[in-house]
């Protein structure tokens, strides 16, 4: 094999930093559009047959007549209208439902959801807590499993590199959803939190497989330097990484295309995250490791 992935270490790192910065910028400029799971609110889903624009306008005026503040009314496949509004009281909700059902003959209620505003804060707090705790646990876990890794690397350095790659993936997914929120009005819900947590898990999973090969090769390297060993390991695991990504993406793609509306954005988040996760094990996690060892060598640490 003549490919040298490690030689362009700086290039990969710069590309990765650039991608992460773009995602972070989108996140800062536009922010994530939080769904009602986080900020409270009601969603009413109705299937109504007929002239779409007209129905949408009528729904809008009906809601403003009822003095309900509307954030949006969207239309998705199968003539399904989703009304995103402020949290409705039981009475208000019934009033609106009766009105819709009497105005449109064909109106068929699909689902309604009301979430009080107090719940969201708890959900956010829990999600953040879960992320922090799992980061710490992952670093500890890797420090432990890689404790016998031969020098110059240390087990905990593998942990930190894996976590950096994981944070990279999370930022990318969040950035993509900031863009989607800004331009398509996509809101994130509690399933999205699940997706992000899954992406984190996968990212670590993937990095560990690569690291494991690095560990194995470090143990039996004969005179090869650290960089060459890492490069060898990356090349050796590349086929596996690509085959795995392809396998998982096949399943996700079929879910994305025919899995229906309710899980579409959830699957999309997974899709982006897993793509990014496969990339980041090779081009973030391993490159951080190489760069780190380079810095250590340079300053004689």
């Amino acid at each position, binding site marked *: 094999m003549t490919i040298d992935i490690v030689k362009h270490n700086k290039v990969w790192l710069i590309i990765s930093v650039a991608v992460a910065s773009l995602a972070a910028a989108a996140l800062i400029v536009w922010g994530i559009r939080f769904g009602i799971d986080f900020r409270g609110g009601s969603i009413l889903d109705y299937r109504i047959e007929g002239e779409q624009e007209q129905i949408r306008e009528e729904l809008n005026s009906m809601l403003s007549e009822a003095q309900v503040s509307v954030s949006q009314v969207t239309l998705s496949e199968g003539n399904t209208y989703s009304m995103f509004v402020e949290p409705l009281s*039981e009475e208000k909700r019934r009033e609106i439902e009766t009105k819709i059902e009497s105005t449109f003959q064909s109106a*068929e*209620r*699909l*689902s*309604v*959801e*009301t*979430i*009080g505003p*107090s*719940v969201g804060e*708890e*959900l956010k707090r*829990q999600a953040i*807590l*879960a992320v922090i*705790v*799992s980061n710490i*646990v*992952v670093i500890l*876990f890797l420090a432990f*499993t890689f404790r016998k890794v031969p020098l110059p690397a240390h087990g905990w350095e593998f942990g930190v590199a894996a976590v950096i790659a994981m944070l990279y993936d999370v930022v990318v997914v969040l950035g993509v959803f900031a863009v989607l929120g800004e331009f398509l009005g996509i809101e994130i819900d*509690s*399933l999205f*939190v*699940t*997706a992000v*947590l*899954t992406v*984190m*898990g996968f990212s*670590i*999973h*993937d990095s*560990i*497989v690569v690291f*494991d090969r690095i560990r194995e090769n470090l143990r039996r390297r004969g005179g090869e330097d650290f960089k060459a060993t890492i490069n060898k390991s990356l090349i*050796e*695991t590349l*086929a*596996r990484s690509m*085959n*795995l990504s392809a*396998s*998982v993406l*096949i*399943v*996700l*793609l*079929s*879910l994305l*295309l*025919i*899995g*229906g509306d*309710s*899980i579409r954005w*959830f*699957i999309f988040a997974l899709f982006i995250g897993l793509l990014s996760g496969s990339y980041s094990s090779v081009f973030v996690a391993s490159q951080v490791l190489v760069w780190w060892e380079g810095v250590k060598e340079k300053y004689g640490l």
Partner: protein
Amino acid sequence: MLTLIIDWPTVTIYGTTLHGPDLEQITNNQLTRRLDIILGLDLQGGTYVALKGDMEGISEEERQDKLDATRSVIKNRVDQFGVSEANVYTSVLGDEHRIIVELPGAGENVEEQIDILRQTANLEFWSEKPFEETINLQADNQPQVFQDPLTQYFNPSDVSGSDLKTASAVRDSTTGEGYEIQLEFTNDGADKFNTLALSTIGRRIAIVLDGIPISQPVVNSDYGQGGNDKFVRITGSFSREAAESLAIQLRGGALPIPVEIVEQRTVEPTLGADALAKSLLAGLIGVVLLMAFMVYLYREYGIIADGALLIYILLNIALYKFIPITLTLAGVAGFIFSVGVAVDANILIFERMLEEIRDGRSKLKAAKLAFDKAWPSIRDSNGSTLMTCFILFYFGTSSVKAFAISLAIGVIIGLFTAVTITRNFMQTFSTSRT
């Protein structure tokens, strides 16, 4: 083999219904329930209501008790709806004390049911009609007309839940064995109850909660001998649990704590069925494509991977039925993701094998080496996924929990099938071919 029997679906083809073997019969009814996959509300349709309990002015230690008492009152009400498999449980999230009610299926009158959940329960005292009246009633009884036994045998009174101050389970005062329920009335209520009891001596008083009689004590002939008293006891050898549960119901005339609806989701069964059908179809197509991809990548070994994958899926479904796991959309997602993880184990082994073959080893040797060399990375990567699952389960909300459980089960079974099935298949296969 066992998984095939458990997984056997009920299939209807052109009017002929094929049932799986009747597991209840085979196991001599040792199974306490049918082995079916339980679907979550998002897949079968239904209503989810979260009620937040107002804990203001209630001390930390008492909160859980109050919440449990409220839960049992609400559970009683839900049971009266006659909804099968309704769930009522409590959930404490930080400072939020909640009671979650899950009503599966199409809620024809779900709006009324929610009203009933919120309202303060209606506690009434009815006095039994004199014997002669009910005899007459039975004489010209018209069998076609259904009469509520309550109105048939009892008269309503003006004593209600608001007259009752409190109720508690106390030790039997005379024998010291067993328990009794002591009712304490308000001043006003005591007068009213006395009038009622004195006119019902020797007959029963029905205590009615939301239209359902929960206790029908007989008024003793010596009632009122001790003068007008605010305290009344229902005697009889109650067990401690029975007495306490009755006392809770009596106190529950008003809910122990005020509640308000903070969250409500209704999914119509048609939408749920649609979501289920779509994600199952998508999953099926995904798995078939995946299996084809495996064969494309690894030829004959791909067939081994496919065999392992099929057994993996069957084992998973069997476990879902046994534990049982309530399947939700998030759970389906977790399962599908775990399929990917399970496939990864196979890919790691086969890639390793191809590598060993490239290094000049024989197929047999390579097959043997591949597993041992791939194992550490399979173990470590799955180990970290499993740990993530535990963290998610511990910190997550219900949908995250569902995801974490199905992923964890998937990872464990994936490890199991990688160790047993893929390894054995591979060795047998390689041996027989050389």
